[in-house]
């Protein structure tokens, strides 16, 4: 009798407890492994992202700017602005993002020369619909902003919205306006 109960207990253990234990052990081992790998790769990934942002700043600033000659500007509070750098010559580049089509962000990097004129710009519309909204990244749209020094931008001043991509264009306009606001209110006066 006791023996029978014993085997029953054993089979219950095999049926219910063992699977759970095995699954939990596998989960724990896997998570531990990933945690270790994450510790190794996280700093490299962080470095990559930083380098990428710096490279984007360099690409809009006047030729000859290097990553070493830039200093970050901290403590910016303008909404939508994600960061800014300045160079020894008084050039400033601001990174800003605003939501475009179906809630996805359009990111812009805007460079200002010392008098507040837009001297360089790059618009990242890769989150927008390919072939339509993504045209905000195109040169024909972006280059129209260069030389602009008339305050807020909107459709028609200085560039028309892209036909069929109003949301993406507005996302770009809003992000550029955030950068301009930030430059005029927080950076220009201080320097």
């Amino acid at each position, binding site marked *: 009798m006791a023996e029978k109960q014993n085997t029953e207990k054993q089979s219950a253990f095999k049926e219910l407890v063992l699977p759970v234990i095995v699954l939990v052990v596998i989960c724990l081992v896997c*998570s531990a492994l990933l945690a270790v790998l994450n510790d190794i790769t996280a700093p490299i990934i962080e470095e990559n992202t930083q380098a990428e942002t710096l490279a984007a700043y360099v690409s809009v600033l006047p030729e000859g700017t290097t990553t070493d000659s830039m200093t970050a500007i901290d403590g910016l509070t303008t909404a*939508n602005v994600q960061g800014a750098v300045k160079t020894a010559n008084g050039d400033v580049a601001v990174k800003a993002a605003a939501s475009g*089509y*179906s*809630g996805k962000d359009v990111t812009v990097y805007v460079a200002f020369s010392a008098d507040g004129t837009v001297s360089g710009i790059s618009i990242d519309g890769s989150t927008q*619909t390919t072939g*339509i909204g993504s045209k905000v990244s195109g040169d024909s749209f972006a280059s129209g902003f260069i030389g602009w020094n008339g305050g807020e931008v909107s459709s028609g001043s200085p560039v028309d919205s892209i036909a*069929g991509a*109003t949301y993406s264009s507005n996302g770009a306009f809003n992000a550029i306006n955030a950068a301009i606001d930030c430059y005029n209110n927080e950076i220009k006066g201080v320097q």
Partner: protein
Amino acid sequence: MMSTHIATFATIFFSMILVNNYVLVQFLGICPFLGVSKKLDSSAGMGAAVIVVMVIATAVTFPLQIFLLDAYNLGYLQTIIFILVIAVLVQLIEITLKKYVPALYQSLGVYLPLITTNCCVLGVTILAVQDYSAIVAEYGFGLAYAEALVCAAGAGVGFLVAMLLFCGVRSRVEAANPPESFKGLPITLVSAAITSMSFMGFGGLVENIINAIF
């Protein structure tokens, strides 16, 4: 202000169906698309089950990502946790339906076990987090969460629409007489190409219609 929210939700919803259709444009969930679309009733059932699972899965994984994974820097566990959550959820939905809504279980129960490994469900949870977690800081969790859910619902409806449409296309293709080598799957894929091309025409259209309404 309210109307801009509604406009945003409407654009997200309709562009998930027409412009960014998961099956025909983003290639997610091709397996059920090619197999199950042979029969109309199975397509409809599968599509409905996918909508339910997608919305519930996003409803669970989105807060999980924001409040657990992002908050404690555990982003690297995303894939494991999401797929496990989906697997558990599908089981839970099955049990709940069986117990409390047997009528619905009758029609959807068959499809649920097949959905765990359907890549469009894991796809929607990951893409929703990718696209909408950035705006949590900007607009607050509530709105971001709502947008993610609308996106999931739109993706599910898009899947259903693609399945139903393609089921119709297929019944015509089956009656046709293609070259010997193209019979079966190859001609199905070529007709999928043409169906997908017709969806390309919707780009820009949705946005302009919604702009005109709001």
